[in-house]
């Protein structure tokens, strides 16, 4: 694990007068699954939004050795970073299939159609509902659609903001199993921010713990899962 795909250095973010991220640094290696754990309000969403250019930040973000700190979101997607926002971020008025097409907006190759088919093969329920509006889907189906939509841009790095939020445990499990398969089969690198430490650490390679805008702990997922402090704070131990 030496190939750093994404590197954030000394990242700070401010809303109005309030500094939310106090100069955090972390990295994501190619082909791994990294997680950032944190309680509500720790700054997880802020971090992930900073990465895809949705908010102004100071510090440096490098992706594939290129400085992307100053790029607009639409350029960052084109570099190969896809972002599934908190709360799914689907297009409720558009059909399921149109949602997937918007996901492929940056592409003009001939394989968009076959990629849509692949999404349907992965999630047959999306095929059944392809002409329904996305807003009519259940929470779990929305999350499947949101992830599929992001994959339609053929990203090198997938950012996921609390994918487990508001979903029943079995659905969360199936969803994360799918992440693992995508990662193993296609080598999609993922950065997942989560409150659900149990499931996230269970599948991740490495993890960070974000506390009030600062990285408190970092390490291999297998060792974090046994860390006293983490067990106390996140695993209900």
């Amino acid at each position, binding site marked *: 694990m030496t190939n750093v795909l994404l590197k954030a250095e000394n990242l700070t973010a401010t809303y109005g007068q309030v500094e939310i991220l106090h100069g955090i640094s972390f990295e994501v290696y190619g082909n791994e699954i990294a997680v950032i754990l944190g309680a509500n309000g720790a700054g997880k969403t802020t971090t992930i939004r900073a990465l*895809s250019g*949705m908010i102004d930040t100071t510090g440096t973000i490098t992706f594939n050795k290129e400085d992307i700190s100053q790029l*607009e*979101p*639409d350029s960052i*997607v*084109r570099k190969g970073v*896809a*972002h599934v*926002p908190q709360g799914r*971020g*689907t*297009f*409720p*008025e*558009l059909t399921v299939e*149109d949602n997937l*097409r*918007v*996901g492929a*907006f*940056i592409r003009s190759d001939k394989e968009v159609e076959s990629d849509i088919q692949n999404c349907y093969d992965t999630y047959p329920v999306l095929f059944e509902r392809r002409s329904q509006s996305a807003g009519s889907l259940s929470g779990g189906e929305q999350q499947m659609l949101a992830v599929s*939509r992001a994959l339609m*841009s053929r990203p090198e790095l997938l950012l996921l903001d609390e994918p487990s939020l508001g979903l029943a445990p079995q659905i969360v499990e199936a969803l994360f199993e799918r992440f693992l398969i995508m990662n193993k089969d296609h080598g999609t690198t993922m950065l997942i921010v989560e409150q659900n430490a149990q499931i996230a650490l269970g599948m991740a390679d490495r993890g960070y713990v974000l506390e009030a805008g600062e990285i408190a702990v970092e390490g291999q997922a297998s060792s974090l899962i046994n860390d006293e402090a983490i067990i106390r704070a996140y695993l209900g131990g």
Partner: protein
Amino acid sequence: MDLFLQRLFDGLTNGSAYALIAVALVLIFKATTLINFAQGEQAMLGAFIVLQLWNWGLPMWIAVITGMLISGLLAGGLERAIIRRFDPADHLPLVIITLGLFLVLNAVAAIIWRYDPLAFPQLFPHGSALTIGNARLSWYSIFAFGSCILVLLLLHVLLNKTKIGLSFRAVSSNLESSRLCGIKVGPTLQFGWALAAAAGTFGASIYAANPVLQIEPSIMLRALIFSITAAALGGLDSLWGALLGGLTIGFIQSVLVQYIPFIPNEMTLAATVAVLLIVLTFRPSGFLGTKAVERV
């Protein structure tokens, strides 16, 4: 009976023109959840540009298409220079700006073309296509309605079958996710403004081509109010709803008001608003509007 038919025909004629302006309003509303109060004046200015081009010797339909392009470009410039500076989520400043534009555009047209009514090119054949008893359905009515359908079909295809249309619908639906998918939101909204202005110019040209009307700077004032009502009746975010709304308003104006003796002619506007209130009470999203359109 003849009179009733005649009134139906008149309703069709006016309704088509209202529908075209309503469509322009719907395009802006879909993109920004904003009513562009300047839409009627942009359309009026567009129609004056058409008239000017025609006076300079362009064939009338070439003048119409060129006028649509010019007003589209102007609206795109307006979006870039003024509208984009403001937070799209904060509606009050934007509404005030569109009201300001309304006044400015009206004044500009008055300065250039004065208030004297001018003859507009007759875009469609003269005379009646159909005579039933004493009721006449003019070629103008048929063509006005036909071009309204044509514009709607073209817009429908543009929005639903093309990539720019997809990005427009995406931006209308979820601004943040659109950015995350790589859509450039500014230019997409600009495209919406241009498209709306072109559609509006077409509508105003059709309206002004009515043999019984002449063009002057306040020609769209009344039409705008009816068109806003039409757009609201149709659901504000539905193209076909705008057509239904436009025709409904046209028919209310020419049929309903004529047959209910206690509604004086001067109260046509009030009658349409009353119908709007009744419809929205029972169907809050209008005829064809998206239910509870949620936006952040």
